[in-house]
């Protein structure tokens, strides 16, 4: 479903963030990208969304990810940013969730219905009129998920979905993610989350691929986990 070959990226004026990373994600699986801080997880996710000018090749649904058809492709991929204050840029929840549908030309009524549906999916019914800046962090995070769910994407990408959440919000959020049945890719160093909902894992270390395997084999070798600063 997603094939990545030789992905490299260097931030302008910075050092290399990714170097020759290759992997594949299968349809319907929960795919974890793990690695310590600064290992390139966020950069990798942004590349998958076509938001960076990377070197290498990314194919999604068999289509090469480049200038043409990028917008159509993005419609079937939802992205949940790490910081919900980045993701939620409209004054009210309703307008924010409706932003995606509006960009893709849905009428006001249709958009409203989709917003309602998405808010129900994250158990935040009736929040349409709320001002974003008055929500708690956990609520913002759920609304951010709603903005990604609203277009019924086939692929959902999460950057550090559990960071900064209190234990109860974390559990709620994990239940939400675990309950979805689209293809999910998430970057994290929350190894408990990996154990609970991931099917397969890509380990990044200093911008390179250190391993790609299923979850059981990852946890079989504690010395590797320590080496990659994951334990």
């Amino acid at each position, binding site marked *: 479903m997603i094939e990545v070959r030789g992905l490299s990226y260097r931030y302008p004026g910075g050092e290399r963030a990714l170097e020759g990373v290759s992997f594949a994600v299968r349809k319907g699986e929960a795919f974890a990208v793990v690695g310590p801080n600064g290992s390139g997880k966020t950069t990798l996710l*942004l590349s998958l*969304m076509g*938001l960076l000018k990377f070197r290498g090749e990314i194919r999604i649904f068999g289509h090469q990810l480049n200038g043409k058809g990028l*917008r159509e492709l*993005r*419609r079937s991929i939802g*992205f949940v*940013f790490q*910081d919900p*204050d*980045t*993701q*939620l*840029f*409209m*004054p*009210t*929840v*309703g*307008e924010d969730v*409706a*932003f*995606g549908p*509006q*960009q*893709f*030309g849905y009428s*006001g009524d249709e*958009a*409203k219905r989709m*917003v309602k549906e998405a808010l129900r999916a994250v158990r935040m019914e009736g929040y*349409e*009129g*709320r*001002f*974003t*800046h008055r929500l708690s962090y956990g609520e913002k995070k759920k609304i951010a998920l709603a*903005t990604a769910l609203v277009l019924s994407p086939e692929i959902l990408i999460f950057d550090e979905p559990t960071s900064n959440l209190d234990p109860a919000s974390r559990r709620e959020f994990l239940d939400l993610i675990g309950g979805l049945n689209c293809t999910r890719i998430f970057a994290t160093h929350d190894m408990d989350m990996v154990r609970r909902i991931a099917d397969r894992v890509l380990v990044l270390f200093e911008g390179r691929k250190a391993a790609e395997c299923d979850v059981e084999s990852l946890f079989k070798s504690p010395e590797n986990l320590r080496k990659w600063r994951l334990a």
Partner: protein
Amino acid sequence: MSHYWTSDLADRPSFFGRIDPRLRFFLFLSALGVISAAGGRLLFGATLFLIGVMLFSVAASAKFRRSVLRALLALLPFGAFVVFLMSLSRETGGPSPLLRGLCSLILIALFVTMMGFDELREVLRSLRVPSIFITLLGFVYRYFFLFREELEKMDMALKNRSFSSSRLEGWRLRALLIGQVLLRSYRRSEEVYRAMTARGYDRKER
């Protein structure tokens, strides 16, 4: 754009709530016009009138009292700054810059308590103001709070770590701090742009 106004109307007094928002907006604009054009007696009259309106509405509702006072307090530093700027300008004519400043201050305080952000956008929309301006206004509103929060956080960090009691040093650090906050805001704006692009935005108004 779809509209979702329901909340944040809580502390709007019902007395002004009954006036059509468009009319309120026009009243505000024309009052602003009068204040900036008038001089001498007219300005004096306008000040008295505004103070009257304010006293009347404050007497009429306790809720209003709280919100208008809050608005005034928030605006006061800004108002002082404006008055200071005006006193630098060439205009010398006794008390009129001061009166003008006071008038605008009261007027704005009245306006923000009388008119919710949602209503304001509704009015601008019905006046056919290009939607890009309204969207921008929305961004400003959304990120104003974040900006303030960031400033407060950095100020706190500064207070926690600075031991020197020199006032000059304090101001020097504050200037650095503001630079930092601006940098952060710049970074934030890049990220927000990415988030918009990820959701299908391609620089076309829809």
